[in-house]
């Protein structure tokens, strides 16, 4: 069982309706599959796929990064600090 913490920020938090969740997979899964899980739950989220980057444990991560139990994965819209 792989259990991960999932964070949404900015407009993604508005779309998902919450900023933090946790997800479980019984088999190996990637960040892409994690996003797909939420896109299925919140169809509006799928529209943002091309303008989202992901991080795993506070480092930007490729979509095919495998998840490990205990990971903190965040989905980040384009950043606009400054």
């Amino acid at each position, binding site marked *: 069982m792989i259990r991960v913490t999932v964070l949404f920020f900015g407009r993604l938090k508005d779309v998902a309706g919450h900023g933090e969740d946790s997800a479980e997979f019984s088999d190996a899964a990637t960040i892409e599959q994690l996003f797909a899980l939420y896109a299925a739950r919140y169809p509006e989220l799928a529209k943002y796929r091309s303008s989202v980057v992901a991080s795993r444990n*506070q480092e930007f991560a490729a979509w095919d*990064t495998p998840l490990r139990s205990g990971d903190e994965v*965040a989905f980040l819209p*384009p950043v*606009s*600090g*400054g």
Partner: protein
Amino acid sequence: MVTLPHDDIYQLVREPIDMAAQIRLVRAPEDGAIVTFDGFVRNQSHNRATLYLDYEAYESMALAKMQEIGIQIHEKYRIHRVAMVHRLGRLEIGETSVFIAVSAPHRAAAFDACRFAIDTLKRTVPIWKKEYFEDGAVWADGELPPVPAATPRAKPAS
């Protein structure tokens, strides 16, 4: 691995930024120059009058990314100390949202490092602003941070 000098400052704050205090903290007798960047809230965006902004951050990652920028500028430029402070929460027109001060023995390195720091912060640090107008609010357009290419193909599971 390069570590940050302990007298550098990297902070996320929710109260007004005391710029004079930051400048005093990076100023040292061996330096000859300090270059600062003061980013503050503009009263309009795309020709719409802004009422105020609200900033949020992925705080732990934002702070780590700010420190990474610090490491990069210490490696690239002959600078002495860095102060990099970003404010979060509601900010009114004219209030400073980000402040960077870089001290160096000579001005060229301080200018270059300060420019690199703000440009990189705007591209890579997970902070977002929501712009509030008379008739609603929008998340500001931003930049998508560069992400590592796909991870090398792992051996197929047997």
